[in-house]
């Protein structure tokens, strides 16, 4: 019986939370109202009704408040809409959506790369080094292989260990050929297999917020990552 009660309570809480999100016109605490004629300049009112001066109906003003991420509420531009499957370096099979709730710093590499990738990887480590430990909890550095044939979970794990990137905030992903192509297209990363084990690819580090929306991209190697780092700090220290 007690169990039933607590379930009901939970449901109620959930429902009230949801209904709050779905209705835009109700006067929750965040909504303010303004007069279309601006009779009292930019004054806002806490309740709906009419303007005390010209008597016109007040208009609800939706505030852009950064709310904690709602489960069912992904933006149109979220990468979590991609349904492709990925293997992690730990051998788990995941969808990108399972990374939801974390700020993501994403780069595409392949482990046999001799030219740019070591520098890209170094860039990622440099960025990591400048993020305070307390922020790492809300952050994942994601390295996506563009060579799913050779970069097996085992190989990715070895690569992670070799490069001292085996903390839990590092994630390595092996996809399918089509999944990788699709993901690269979302990031606007270009790549081409030149020969087995060698690819041309663009060097782009992308930052996603916890809803999976692209917030910042930095292209090029060994470039100044000040903006990237600032973006990451902004996203991970908000709450």
């Amino acid at each position: 019986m007690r169990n039933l009660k607590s379930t009901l309570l939970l449901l109620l809480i959930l429902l009230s939370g949801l209904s709050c999100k779905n209705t835009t016109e109700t006067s929750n605490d965040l909504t303010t109202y303004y007069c279309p004629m601006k009779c009292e300049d930019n004054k806002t009112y806490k309740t709906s009704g009419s303007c005390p001066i010209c008597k016109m109906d007040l208009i609800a003003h939706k505030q852009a408040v950064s709310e904690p991420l709602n489960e069912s509420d992904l933006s149109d531009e979220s990468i979590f809409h991609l349904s492709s499957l990925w293997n992690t370096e730990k051998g788990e099979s995941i969808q990108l959506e399972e990374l939801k709730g974390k700020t993501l710093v994403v780069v595409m590499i392949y482990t046999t790369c001799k030219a740019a990738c070591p520098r890209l990887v170094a860039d990622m480590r440099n960025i990591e080094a400048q993020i305070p430990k307390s922020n790492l909890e809300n952050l994942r550095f994601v390295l996506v292989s563009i060579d799913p044939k050779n970069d097996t979970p085992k190989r990715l794990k070895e690569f992670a260990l070799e490069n001292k990137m085996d903390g839990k905030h590092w994630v390595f992903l092996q996809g399918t050929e089509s999944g990788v192509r699709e993901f690269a297209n979302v990031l606007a990363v270009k790549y081409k297999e030149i020969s087995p084990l060698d690819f041309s690819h663009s060097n782009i580090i992308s930052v996603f917020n916890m809803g999976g929306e692209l917030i910042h991209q930095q292209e090029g190697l060994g470039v100044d990552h000040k903006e990237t780092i600032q973006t990451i700090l902004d996203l991970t220290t908000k709450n």
Partner: protein
Amino acid sequence: MVLIKGGTYTPLYGRDSLKVTVSDFKMDVYPVTHEQFLEFIKKTPKWKRSTIKKLFADKNYLIDWKSDVEIGAKQSLKAPITNVSWFVAKDYCKTQGKRLPTIDEWEYVAMANKTLPDARPLKTYNEYILSWYEKPKTFNNEIGSTFKNYWGVYDLHGLVWEWTLDFNSVLISGESRKDVDNDSNLFCGSAAIGASDLMNYAAFMRYAIRGSVKAKYALKTLGFRCVKEMSN
């Protein structure tokens, strides 16, 4: 679909071995039409103009359609579908048990004229394509209104550009046009990329388009067709 017998050829942009080998495959005879796409859209609500996620298509997606399930007044059911993004084109082919052609496959078939599998050395071949580039609004023409090529495929040149599966493997950026060689910062291994036949301006245009579009772009001049791999 018609069978395309595989072979080896040198594309405009070679890999380090220059030659590219294409296996046997089947290709749609025509680009996908408004009519076919309409059928698909009716069954796949997530790709309707009003419901598609911005991640998968820009604002030009099906922009001339009257509604989610009606094509525009000036559009013909038999004309090729355009204003579609790569994501949707890819899914269309997948739904049919097919896929988009790779650049190598598409170019391989498109080398042909009416009688030869590789007509690229012919002046008339290049002139035909270039004269198409000068014609306005060929995307309004109906499928089959150009020539049937050596393989039995229509409209590779003369109606619309077409999406390819790996269009994003074309590594041309604004930077690579500059004299200074600083794009080595952008692309790993970029020295391996170069045009093998600079005379082939017509093909150069196609690669330039591929190098400049993004997967969510929906352009009025860009349609697609599908291919199918041969099961052994």
